[in-house]
């Protein structure tokens, strides 16, 4: 083998390797090639059902179509008139009235020994010398004692008593009867006012006795002085009896049922206010008398202001307000003691959403009236306070943000004057044409009554005018100036009542109104609510969503003669989705239109940028022929229009800046060779089919 051959081999490898490695380098970034892409862009198959909003279109029995546009002249809803419940606050002041003191007991014991030494009665003193022996006790008079302190300060310091009694009871432990036993009670203060004197005529030996002494009107100190003023005994009547100086007269003083105008005391738990009341609520004018209201939203807020120096409990109940679960409004809280010379405050709120309030009162024979109760009490704190009967509580309860969902009763009677001078009216603006002549045009007054009450409408005047200076036309029709009955809605389910007053070419000047091309209306009318008063005896009702609408219903049958009726619409347009269209180097759009409407159209399609400038004219006054009609003036064969539009790279780039597509068509019925001069009906089976596809020269990249 030639020894140089391997070198040639190595050289070959190097050359191949360099070629190989060189070829791996991406010289131009990406590779690209043109693709021929055919894509559907847009398609539509539109009948009149797709062109006209469903809420303005009705189809007649013969499948021809009628457009019905409603212009609202007046709208009445629940909050406008029928049932408005403004935020209302009811307030009630309450005085405490009286304060009670707890029943107290005071004890006092007069022993024989104390009587003897205190009264300085020699006979009695003599007898005590025989203590422990049996002796005959003779009659003794003028027995008395020194004043003794009785301390009730633990219970009260001073009380201005309105009512109450002091009961004196005790036991005569002596072996002899007692007669004319007289006690006296005095305040142990600087004035030593006598509270009362009590005389018990006879107390047999070894017996119990009870008597009372009124305290009404007295001022009683907590520290008292009790004194046995006088007493006598007939003695043992010759019988020897055991002399025991420790025995005597045991007395217990009990304060019963004491109520005070004022007191400085440790007060017991007690109720200071317990009352109920009827609250009458006035809702609306017109004498509405509501029986039941279901609340959609709102609440009741109760606030209590107290001047009492002690904590108070309050409890508010509204038995006539029931939740969906049958629970009544029942709220309570504790208010702190009032500061000296001021008031303490507490507030509570209950959400009334879903509640039903019975406004017929406790006996179901009233209206607009509910019943509530308030109770206020104090607790015994063990603390010494001053409580006065003149202390006050102020109670405020507010129905706020109340929105009724449903109400029944009598909703009142009134007359509403409806005078609206400038109502925008755009119905005829939709038909911008040289000639627009619909067959059997009508303007009807339609009243939809969603409220359970009777009503009547009288249209005084309807004026149609053009704000840009056209003529002004007053509607002349039989209904003008006459009352029209509006039936009430029926409940469960809610079914609105409806009245329709037909105003057409035969009984009015509607064609003159059409020809004036009005864009505003002036409406003057009266609406009478419940013209027969409460004839159904509180059977009116209203829902939150209940409305009463007075509409002007414009009926335009699509049986028409039209010339240059302009239809214009603007669509959003953005071609460069995802940046892919930057790779389109050229495009051909294929547009195919099949028209079965008996209308000839001259179509223009422009693309516009964000500033409304025309970026590209796609179609310029392209004529789409009307369909071919049969002898009944119905479409027999659709017309077909095919268009081909080419775009180069520059135009495609321009199109990418477009944001709106404006389609404008001028349509006429005159493009027909047959049925000339006749009204042409638009049937709901007429369609216009449009299809746009495109062939793109697309620069694919890798």
């Amino acid at each position, binding site marked *: 083998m030639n020894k140089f051959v391997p070198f040639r081999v190595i050289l070959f490898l190097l050359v191949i390797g360099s070629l190989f490695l060189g070829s791996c380098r991406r010289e131009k970034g990406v590779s690209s*090639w043109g693709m021929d892409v055919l894509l559907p862009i847009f398609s539509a198959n539109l009948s009149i059902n797709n062109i006209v909003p469903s809420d303005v279109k009705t189809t007649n029995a013969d499948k021809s179509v009628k457009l019905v546009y409603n212009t609202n002249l007046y709208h009445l809803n629940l909050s406008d008139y029928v049932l408005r419940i403004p935020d209302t606050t009811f307030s009630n002041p309450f005085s405490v009235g009286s304060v009670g003191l707890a029943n107290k007991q005071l004890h006092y014991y007069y022993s024989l020994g104390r009587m003897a030494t205190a009264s300085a009665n020699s006979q009695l003193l003599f007898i005590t010398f025989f203590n422990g022996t049996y002796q005959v006790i003779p009659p003794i008079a003028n027995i008395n004692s020194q004043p003794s302190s009785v301390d009730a300060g633990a219970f009260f310091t001073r009380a201005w008593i309105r009512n109450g009694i002091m009961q004196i009871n005790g036991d005569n432990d002596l072996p002899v009867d007692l007669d004319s036993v007289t006690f006296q009670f005095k305040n142990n203060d600087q004035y030593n006012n006598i509270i009362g004197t009590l005389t018990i005529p006879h107390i047999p030996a070894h017996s119990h006795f009870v008597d009372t002494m009124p305290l009404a009107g007295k001022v009683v100190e907590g520290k008292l002085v009790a004194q046995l003023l006088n007493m006598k005994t007939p003695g043992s009547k010759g019988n020897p009896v055991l002399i025991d100086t420790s025995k005597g007269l045991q007395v217990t003083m009990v304060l019963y049922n004491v109520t005070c105008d004022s007191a400085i005391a440790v007060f017991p738990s007690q109720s200071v206010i317990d009352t109920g009341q009827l609250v009458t609520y006035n809702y609306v004018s017109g004498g509405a008398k509501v029986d039941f209201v279901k609340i959609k939203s709102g609440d009741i807020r109760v606030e209590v202001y107290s001047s009492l120096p002690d904590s108070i409990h309050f409890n508010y109940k509204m038995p006539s307000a029931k939740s969906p679960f049958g629970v009544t409004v029942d709220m309570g809280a504790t208010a702190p003691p009032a500061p000296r010379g001021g008031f303490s405050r507490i507030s509570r709120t209950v959400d009334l959403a879903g509640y039903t309030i019975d406004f017929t009162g406790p006996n179901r024979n009233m209206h607009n009236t509910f019943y509530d109760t308030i109770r206020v009490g104090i607790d015994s704190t063990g603390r010494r306070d001053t409580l006065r009967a003149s202390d006050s509580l102020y109670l405020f309860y507010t129905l706020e943000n109340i929105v009724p969902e449903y109400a029944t009763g009598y909703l009142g009677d009134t007359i509403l004057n409806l005078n609206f001078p400038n109502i925008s009216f755009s119905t005829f603006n939709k038909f911008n044409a040289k000639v627009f002549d619909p067959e059997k045009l009508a303007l009807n007054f339609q009243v939809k009554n969603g409220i359970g009450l009777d009503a009547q409408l009288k249209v005084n005047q309807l004026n149609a005018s053009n704000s840009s200076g056209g003529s002004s036309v007053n509607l002349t029709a039989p209904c003008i100036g006459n009352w029209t009955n509006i039936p009430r809605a029926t409940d469960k389910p809610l079914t609105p009542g409806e009245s329709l007053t037909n105003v057409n070419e035969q009984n009015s000047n509607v064609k003159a109104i059409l020809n004036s091309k009005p864009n505003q209306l002036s409406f003057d009318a009266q609406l009478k609510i419940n013209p027969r008063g409460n004839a159904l005896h509180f059977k009116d009702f209203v829902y939150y969503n209940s409305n009463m609408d007075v509409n002007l219903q414009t009926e335009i049958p699509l049986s028409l003669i039209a010339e240059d009726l302009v239809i214009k619409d603007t669509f959003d347009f953005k071609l460069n989705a995802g940046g892919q269209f930057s790779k389109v180097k050229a495009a051909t759009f294929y547009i195919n239109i099949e028209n079965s409407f008996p209308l000839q159209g001259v179509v223009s399609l422009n693309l516009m940028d964000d500033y409304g400038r025309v970026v590209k004219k796609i179609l310029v006054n392209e004529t789409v022929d009307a369909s071919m009609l049969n002898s009944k003036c119905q479409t027999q064969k659709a017309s077909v229009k095919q268009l081909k539009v080419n775009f180069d790279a520059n135009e495609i780039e321009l199109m990418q800046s477009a944001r709106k597509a404006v389609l404008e068509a001028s349509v006429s019925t005159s493009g027909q060779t047959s049925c000339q001069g006749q009204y042409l009906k638009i049937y709901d089976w007429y369609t216009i089919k449009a299809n746009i596809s495109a062939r793109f020269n697309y620069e694919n990249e890798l």
Partner: protein
Amino acid sequence: MKKFSVLAILLLSGIHLNVKGQIVRDTIKVLEKSTRGSGCIIPEEPHILTTDLIYKTYCFDNFFYSNKPNALILNTSLHSGSNYIPVQLMHQLYKGGSVDESLRLKSLNSGSNSHLRIGGIAQGQLSFIFNFFKNKRPLRYRLYKMSALSSQITVENNTLLDASLQPDIASLYLLGNGFFADKTAQLGPSSLQYLQFNSIGFNQSFHVIKYGVDPELLSIKSLFSLNVGFNINQLNTYQRIDLHSGSLYTAPLGQYLDLNYNVSSQSFHENSKMGLGLNLGIGKSWNHFNASIDVHNLGFWNLSKVQTLSADTSFQYQGIVLQTWGQNPSLPKDSLSTLLGLHSSTSSQKVWAPGKLKFQANFRSVWVFNITYWYTLKALPLVELRYAKWENSVFGKGASHFRFMFNPCIGYGGFGTYHLGFSSGLQYKRAALLLNISDLQSLALKNQSSFSAGIKLAYSF
């Protein structure tokens, strides 16, 4: 899809190192070391047949002469191709710039409307060869003895793309559907699979020898050689799309498109999933003729969270449909998956590892014939004939440490069709470099459809 496209081009225009060697004489030196301890007579040149795995681990593809037991081998390779998309087109697509329509048409027409196969396998591999049982006594049974030949630990990274597509799909991609105006493009059956996984392999080669007792047989006789081992495969990415059936009709002016398809796709993108693959090989020699058969990486992954999308639907697309006058035209609000009728689910699935079956035979260690079959792929069995001849005299006597090889080869199959190539190596002392280009015809003729190449570095110690 773009990811696959890029990968396909990379594969098709990348480097291929897929050189297979034959038995070399130096193997005997190692055998001598392992058998002298037994006291047997060692023939000068025993015709030992090893398996393909043993070639890899021991003989270094017939070019690496060394008497050292240990070696490190770095191997990168790429085998790629298509049955008719020419390398010229791929070259152009990868190179960048405008791709001429005539080239696209010529490329598509060359397929004669047959199914398009396209794919590639890219592999990076580092192997450490040693003899784990170096000082162990061989296993004996009567007259038979099994000696450990070599051990190998291999770490490798594999990326694989395998696609079988209806030719119309390529036409749609390269020409657009305008080419199919008023025609139906067949989209299915087609399939595409993409895998990326790492492996670590443990292999052990054995040599089974029979000792003769007859004077005439008083020599050792090699019976066969064995290789056993396993791979731990870490799956990183798995994606598969099967378009069982499908068609696209384009209306004459593109007024509408009728599309129907029955498609399913599976994808796995979890962090990783481990699987196991077995390696088995057996070889036998008869005088100057050796043959071996190997199965490599026979195993699978049991995936528990395979995201599956499927659809069996048909619909007509008419562009943006205007339903009512005044409506702003817009694309459908439904998500793309809803529009396409896709159903999503997660399921468990068994995915076969992309193993291969290889048969190899050689005559006098010079003429080598092998068949490689990737049994999980759409590629054809790869048949190759190689002439392997070493020269150490080309550098003269003063350069005895140099050795040089230039081996031509011819083959057919794999991801492409026929191919003509060579492998060339240079060894200096214990280091060697091998370059392989299997598709010279693709470089020369441009209209050929496959390309494979690779580089291998080896060092023994």
